[in-house]
């Protein structure tokens, strides 16, 4: 009797599982198809695209389109390729991510371990930053940047992204530190560690998982941002996304689809890289064993 039931259970399990995998496979294919088109077409000479099938593999494999997109393609009026703008983006993203993550960690630390009157209200107000649409702040922000003398510069863009990111990073770190035992902070106080020493020696070393979340989130958002880049950057601080748009839009005759595809992949590579490198640190139980057993 029990053997028969078990048998049925196994069989239904197998059927359900096959179904789930099939659906997952379908979704994966659906998602990967555009990427396949981009990748194959970026490796073809232009004539193959205009004359043939978008879906077919290249007959002549060539990296010309990639070279062109990287260093010689026409971006606006300059034939520089995406290279200088890639650098601009990096110079903007790295400090912006680092600063917003650090400030978020510090805010989360204060909001959970150095509570003060009205801290929850303050936190609630900070959360508003997550809901304000970018478009609303464009004009006031432009005015502020102008007043501070940061208009059209990379530091200006960094400031904008840091200000916009703090809401999210604070949310992440506050919620993470909320479950961090306050007794540890008290113990450190008795041991004689001050505000920053506790943050540096006790809190930050166990913040790995949430720092990774914050970095991934911030990196993806800032790297992919187009609106702020298009609004507040000038030619020598223009980020990758804006340059990509200019690349696609500056036509000097024929549309070089293969170059556009290569450029688009180049623009997406850094975020992909961050996910691959940092993704595995995502769910690490670094807190295990700090409190009771």
């Amino acid at each position: 009797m029990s053997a028969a039931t078990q048998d049925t259970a196994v069989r239904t399990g197998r059927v359900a599982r096959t179904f789930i995998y099939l659906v997952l496979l379908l979704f994966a294919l659906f998602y990967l198809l555009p990427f396949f088109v981009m990748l194959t077409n970026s490796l073809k000479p232009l004539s193959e695209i205009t004359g043939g099938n978008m879906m077919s593999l290249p007959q002549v494999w060539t990296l010309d389109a990639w070279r062109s997109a990287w260093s010689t393609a026409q971006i606006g009026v300059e034939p520089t390729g995406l290279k200088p703008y890639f650098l601009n983006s990096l110079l903007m993203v790295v400090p912006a991510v680092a600063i917003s993550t650090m400030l978020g960690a510090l805010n989360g630390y204060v909001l959970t371990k150095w509570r003060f009157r009205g801290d929850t209200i303050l936190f609630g107000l900070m959360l508003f930053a997550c809901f304000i649409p970018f478009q609303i702040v464009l004009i006031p922000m432009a005015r502020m940047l102008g007043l501070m003398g940061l208009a059209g510069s990379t530091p200006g863009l960094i400031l904008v992204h840091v200000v916009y990111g703090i809401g999210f990073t604070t949310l992440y770190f506050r919620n993470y530190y909320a479950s961090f035992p306050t007794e540890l902070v008290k113990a450190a106080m008795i041991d004689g560690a001050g505000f920053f020493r506790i943050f540096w020696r006790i809190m930050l070393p166990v913040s790995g998982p949430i720092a990774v979340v914050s970095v991934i989130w911030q990196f993806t958002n800032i790297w992919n941002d187009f609106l702020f880049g298009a609004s507040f950057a000038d030619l020598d601080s223009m980020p990758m996304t804006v340059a990509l748009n200019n690349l696609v839009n500056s036509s000097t005759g024929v549309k070089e689809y293969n170059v556009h595809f290569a450029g688009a992949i180049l623009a997406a590579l850094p975020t992909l890289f961050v996910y691959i490198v940092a993704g595995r640190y995502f769910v690490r139980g670094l807190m295990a064993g700090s409190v009771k057993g």
Partner: protein
Amino acid sequence: MGFLDISHVTKSYGKVQVLHEVDISVQEGEFLVLVGPSGCGKSTLLNMIAGLEAISSGDISIKGRVINGVHPSKRNIAMVFQSYALYPNMTVGQNMTFGLEMHGVPKAERERALADVGKLLQIDHLLDRKPGQLSGGQRQRVAMGRALVRNPDVFLFDEPLSNLDAKLRVDMRTEIKKLHHKLGTTIVYVTHDQIEAMTLSTRIAVMNKGYVQQLGTPKEIYDTPANLFVATFMGSPAMNILPATVVMQNGAAHAEITDSEGVVRRLRFSQGNMAEWAGKAILLGIRPEAITDPEGADRKSGNIQPFANRVTVTEPAGSDTFVTMTLSGKDVIARMRADASVAPGQIFDFAVNMEKAVAFDPVTEARIAG
């Protein structure tokens, strides 16, 4: 003037007062236990000694130095937390020397202190491990080691054993007591467990609702509880409390109660001044071990009174047998020797040691001194 002086200390959060005028003076080398139900203010008081909570009014001083408003790290205290609060990212050794490092003690000295304490607590083989790799008992030792390394004036323990399983808790209790004997340090220890309080302390402060109900040696607390709360809180099973009336018979005060059949019975008081209460209602308190079979009665007692009553339930607990009966309408528990032959439903001859009985004023709930 004691080593650690708590004088007129109060604590309030807004309008809510959680500690009322606490006065405790602790001598050097004393083991003071603050015990009480949750919410009685014992942990708040400990945190105030540690400097983790501000003092609303009154003074706390260590070695004659008033430490109100002094930063926790400058009070020369060390604290062991309920959750141990070991820094998860540091090794055991780093955990234990973190405080010394923060106080700028040179490395060689730190290493020496670490080696000494590691040996004392038998954790020297664990120094390179992370807290996550330790068992509960080992973490407990490390937490104590971290306190010991600093060689503080006063040790503060905040329910340090409540996260351990029953057997380990008893072992660690003995360990802490041994350590106290060996080092002779001054300790303030918070617990809600009255057995821990009785076994560890040299003095106990029983607290309830923000008041210190009684401060005294374990024996004083147990034998002459100041009021009904202390009497019922300390001791397991709890002291039996029965409504009774004081009557005079042959010139001696007796407590008049009813047995399981509703028959009026009288037990003679040992206390001389109970005559003043003649005709009045009181609450009679008798500890379970003061009600036994006649052979098990305390031979040194001058006032053993026989008392036949019907047994309701017997609970053999191995070392003792607990016998439940009804007196004055209340369930009363007697603690018998394990081999006392007593069966449920039987009318049994009990022996009540009235020398150990106490009486309480039913209105004020204070013990009637005698």
